[in-house]
């Protein structure tokens, strides 16, 4: 095999893994490669995908965000609570606090941004590990969500559910949102100074500092982005199922989002991340989740396979870096 072809293969290993999985699943079950199932698959992964774009930015700067699932639950509970029918007996805000849907969604995103700003400021200025800062934030936000309501926030109006559950010419809105976020993430990473400085901070924070980049401010922005994505995820999640359960909404989504970003080649040692990679990562997890169910694989076995495939695909993807050592 020529060196060039070898390089092509190792650089695109992740897509090859994805294609191999798709082919395998299609052969194993004829219902896998149908338009309807594709739609299901994408809808199912879109929310985690959006959150993966959020957390990928954090990982890119050598950070991590474990709070995203809890932030999603908190924002889902608050925004959902604010738009619940005013006469509902089990309202989250029984006082009658009520907002119009757009305002409530906006408020949700603003809350996300504020949480992100706090997390980012703590990480940037105190230099504590992102793992701890966001683990703490996870505890606080999850508890906060349960304080908002100790039962699922339900009976959400159709207008609130627009993004989460409607379709647009056969394409689920949720998938469209995902695509828009992907484009936005691509634009930010490749066509803004902010994006470039993320790579620099992750690759060599000292280099970034001496090049005049304000590392603290940039980190704050990173976690704002990450938490806003989580907030958006929370709103979509509530919209999708028409109800937001503060105790389970977004539970462990951070792990799936981080796994997707990592399978997609985002490096935990910082400085490496590509949007197409993250998309591939999400799709791989989606194909596993969806395909193994269609094949009727027993659930525990599915988790074992999922674990193996996650590890395996990262191992294959790592090989492009190993040759150079």
């Amino acid at each position, binding site marked *: 095999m020529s060196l060039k072809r070898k390089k092509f293969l190792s650089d695109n290993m992740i897509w090859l893994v994805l294609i191999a999985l798709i082919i395998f699943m299609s052969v194993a079950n004829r219902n896998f490669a149908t338009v309807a199932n594709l739609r299901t698959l994408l809808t199912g992964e879109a929310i985690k995908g959006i959150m993966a774009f959020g957390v990928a930015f954090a990982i890119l700067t050598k950070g991590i965000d474990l709070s995203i699932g809890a932030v999603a639950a908190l924002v889902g509970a608050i925004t959902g609570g604010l738009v619940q029918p005013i006469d509902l007996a089990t309202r989250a805000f029984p006082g009658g606090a009520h907002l119009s849907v757009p305002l409530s969604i906006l408020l949700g995103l603003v809350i996300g941004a504020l949480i992100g700003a706090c997390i980012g400021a703590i990480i940037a200025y105190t230099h504590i590990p992102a793992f701890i800062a966001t683990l703490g934030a996870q505890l606080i936000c999850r508890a906060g969500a349960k304080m908002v309501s100790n039962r699922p926030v339900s009976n959400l109006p159709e207008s609130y559910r627009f993004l989460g559950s409607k379709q647009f010419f056969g394409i689920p809105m949720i998938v469209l949102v995902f695509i828009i976020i992907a484009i936005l993430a691509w634009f930010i990473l490749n066509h803004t100074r902010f994006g470039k400085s993320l790579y620099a901070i992750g*690759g*060599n924070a000292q280099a970034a500092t001496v090049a*005049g980049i304000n590392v603290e401010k940039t980190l704050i922005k990173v976690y704002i982005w990450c938490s806003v994505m989580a907030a958006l995820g929370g709103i979509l999640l509530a919209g999708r199922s028409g109800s937001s359960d503060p105790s389970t909404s977004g539970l462990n989504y951070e792990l799936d989002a981080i796994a997707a970003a990592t399978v997609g080649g985002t490096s935990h040692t910082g400085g490496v991340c590509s949007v197409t990679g993250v998309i591939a990562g999400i799709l791989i997890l989606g194909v596993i989740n969806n395909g193994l169910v269609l094949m009727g694989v027993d659930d525990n076995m599915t988790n074992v396979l999922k674990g193996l495939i996650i590890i395996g695909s990262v191992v294959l993807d790592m090989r492009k870096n190993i040759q*150079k050592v």
Partner: protein
Amino acid sequence: MQDIVKEFPGVKALNGVQLSVRPGTVHTLMGENGAGKSTLVKCLIGMQPVTSGKIIYKGKEVAFKTTQEALNAGISMIHQELSPVLERSVSDNVFLGREPKKGIFLDYKKMHGDCLELFEKIGLKIDPSEKMKNLTVAKMQMVEIVKAISYDASIVIMDEPTSALTESEVEDLFKIIEELKSKGVAIIYISHKMEEIFRISDDISVFRDGEYVTTDRAENLTQDKVIEFMVGREITDMFPKKHCEIGEEVLKVENLCSGKAVQNVSFTLCKGEILGFAGLVGAGRTETMETIFGMRKKTGGKIYKDGKEIHIKSPEDAIRNRIGMLTEDRRGNGIVGILSIKMNTVLAHLKSYGFPINSRKMAEDTQAYVERLGTKTPSIETPIGNLSGGNQQKVLLARWLLTDPDILIVDEPTRGIDVGAKAEIHTILSELAGMGKSIIVVSSELPEVLGVADRIVVMREGVVTGCLGREEVSQELIMKYATLDKSKQKAVQ
């Protein structure tokens, strides 16, 4: 800069230092390792806050809080420790933090073009879209230099810019400096290389242990005088080569290969011999040594020690065979920055401290080497990262001396080291050879190789182009072999 004081916990790095720089001149800072040169310029560009003192720039008192402010005000810097973003492209590195925009998009074309233009101006052949990590250390350094001058600053600080460069690139740099001077740019230059300092300096300031010693015009000073100011005593012999008996063959390397970097390298090394390795940067010397030491995969060839073939797959194996190696990349694979001097010293020798580990002996050994090598440190528990580069190098040397190897490979042993320490290290190497050890010295500084080595192997592009005895060598001859055409090399061998 007036009366600058800078304190780190436990260390007073600067104590009432003065510096005034005139436009259109090169002002060189001199001093031993740890004298506070880097700290001073870091204070100037806002990387570190001063404890007290005044900085007056263009007639106004300033106190930059970030490098951003300094850059905006027209002060740029080439940093002593390389600071590239390895995973990104060359042009991304050059324009980091000031990428040109076209509409809402970044203008990649312009970045690429501008970058090429900058490179071409100084005859540098680098593809701006290449990933930084694929460049050689010297090329990276050139990119750093280009980046620093591309800010169009009125002060350019160069902290040991040449320590990773080869002769020809140094010439390029000097051309750049001349051009900057003619434009009225002031240059603050830090280096330990005497020859270059006297070639380019207008003014020279000398520091010692954080104290300001003197400033004078270069023409009023001589090398010896500067050294005396720096060290506080005279150094008579830079290369105190002791003559010693060269014994039987200890190491024989036959047709050693490692990928493209090392091709069929063969040489021998004898007891009590110092073997120099010369060549331009990128000649494959470091790679050869790394292969011998097991840091790099051997793809062919044999290595014999004391007549027996040895198989080395990792540094662990090499150490077991009593080979030591002081590597070139001090920060990358030398020091463990957050650990103490003690831990760094004993790291390669842990096996000998028994179970449970004898901490007292570790401290004793460390203390002994701190004293023997004159390492400047508050205590042996100080994290090595807090030491100046030269003192770090001494600790690393101590690490290998402690393992008492038969063969010691030292790769650029005096990079970034002041004259005093340099002479000390040369003395130590010479003494070791005298004790019957065999030493390989890889260095890009020709005087150093010429000064300490008994024989000199010259390499170019992964192959050995010549092997010269002490009597026959000269700088010219080495350069000839180092630049020798591949087609002709057969004849020489």
